């Protein structure tokens, strides 16, 4: 019996809302799937599409990006800029054949510890259903094999 597939998910979160929300989930003793590795950043506006590509390049099966609700940004409009960027980036990924299902976006405030736990569970389930990102991992393996002369 092979072990069930456990997806590896990287979450890029903003420190003022979603990271605090994740903290709240922790202090409220809420249990959620352990598949997510959180990377804390100052603002969603700081999240470059390069980060998402890097996560995939390092073998992530899915990526989650989360920040403050519109209007709540600590820097007043970082998340508005981020929203436009994601909209365009998602359609680019879709056109090039990287399923937008693997790259998720959400708004989670510092008070939404429960929503954070639920979201992590549902995202983990979604990615588990999609399975490992084999097509991308094949490309990664190619870079790891020594060149033949």
């Amino acid at each position, binding site marked *: 019996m092979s072990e069930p597939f456990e997806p590896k998910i990287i979450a890029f979160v903003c420190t003022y809302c979603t990271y605090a929300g994740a903290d709240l989930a922790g202090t409220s003793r809420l249990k959620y799937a352990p598949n997510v590795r959180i990377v804390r950043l100052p603002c969603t506006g700081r999240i470059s*599409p*390069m980060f998402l*590509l*890097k996560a995939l*390049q390092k073998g992530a099966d899915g990526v989650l990006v989360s920040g403050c609700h*519109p*209007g709540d940004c600590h820097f007043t*409009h970082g998340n*508005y*800029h981020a*929203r*436009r*960027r*994601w*909209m*365009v*980036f*998602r*359609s*680019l*990924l*879709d*056109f*090039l*054949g*990287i*399923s*937008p299902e693997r790259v*998720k*976006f*959400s*708004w989670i405030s510092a008070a939404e510890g429960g929503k954070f736990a639920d*979201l992590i569970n549902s*995202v983990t389930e979604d990615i588990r259903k999609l399975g490992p990102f084999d*097509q*991308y991992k094949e*490309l*990664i393996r*190619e*870079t790891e094999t020594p060149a033949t002369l």
Partner: protein
Amino acid sequence: MITQEKYRTRVKELLASNSVKMVIGYKQGSTADRRRPLFVRSFEEADELVLDSNCIGNLAGYLVTEGLLSDEKRVGIFLRPEGIRSINILAAESQLNPEQIIIFGFDTSGREVKALQGEQAEDFSGLIDSLKEKPPEKSSDALLYRIDQMNTEERFAFWKDEFSRCIKCYACRQACPMCYCRRCIVDSNQPQWINTSSHTLGNFEWNIVRAFHLAGRCVGCGNCDRACPVNIPLRFINARMAQEVFESFDHYAGTSQTQEPVLASFNKDDSETFIL
């Protein structure tokens, strides 16, 4: 032919009166139907100018050559409507002063060449607005139609196959008038975002990033597509990005010199249907 003669005379007039220090145009290329850039500084060079339906390259990128415009003298340039849009974007992004640019506008239909009225970028705003009203034909290309019909996995396989041929010569970047960064993200190695070795992974990443950086800025001149030595259909990716920003944010790149770059601005009512 008449347009060519008219413009040759005008170039000589401007050079004689010292109104421009140089005019960037086209001359005969290595084969009968190829044209290469010509940098006119004298009357003899002006006689080499060629203007016909084979003049398809967008020359706007030469204007951001380091030091060209720093003496505040004027430079003339032959441009199609896409080229004029490039000038507007470069001006909006503070890369040049549009008042320094004298435009020799032209457009072609079939083998016919017609001159466009105006000399400064703002003179063409009516023309560019009319281009915006006329949306580009969707899926007119058989290959693009095929890509649209594919599912995600087939699409990945299709692009993997295309990008596996990429040799990372960066000709697409060098040919693009919008790629003026002195240090491109692919050249930085601390941190190194993109794998620069000759593997498909890095090719994939490079092409994603290139297309993303051109989102809302590409005017569809086709320089990258023609420059690609392995014929990757880059025009489709750029066109998809242009379509996305047009549909989502009503943004048509290069309509004016004061147009805000689409990814450096926002609207509180932007769509967010994809956000959980």
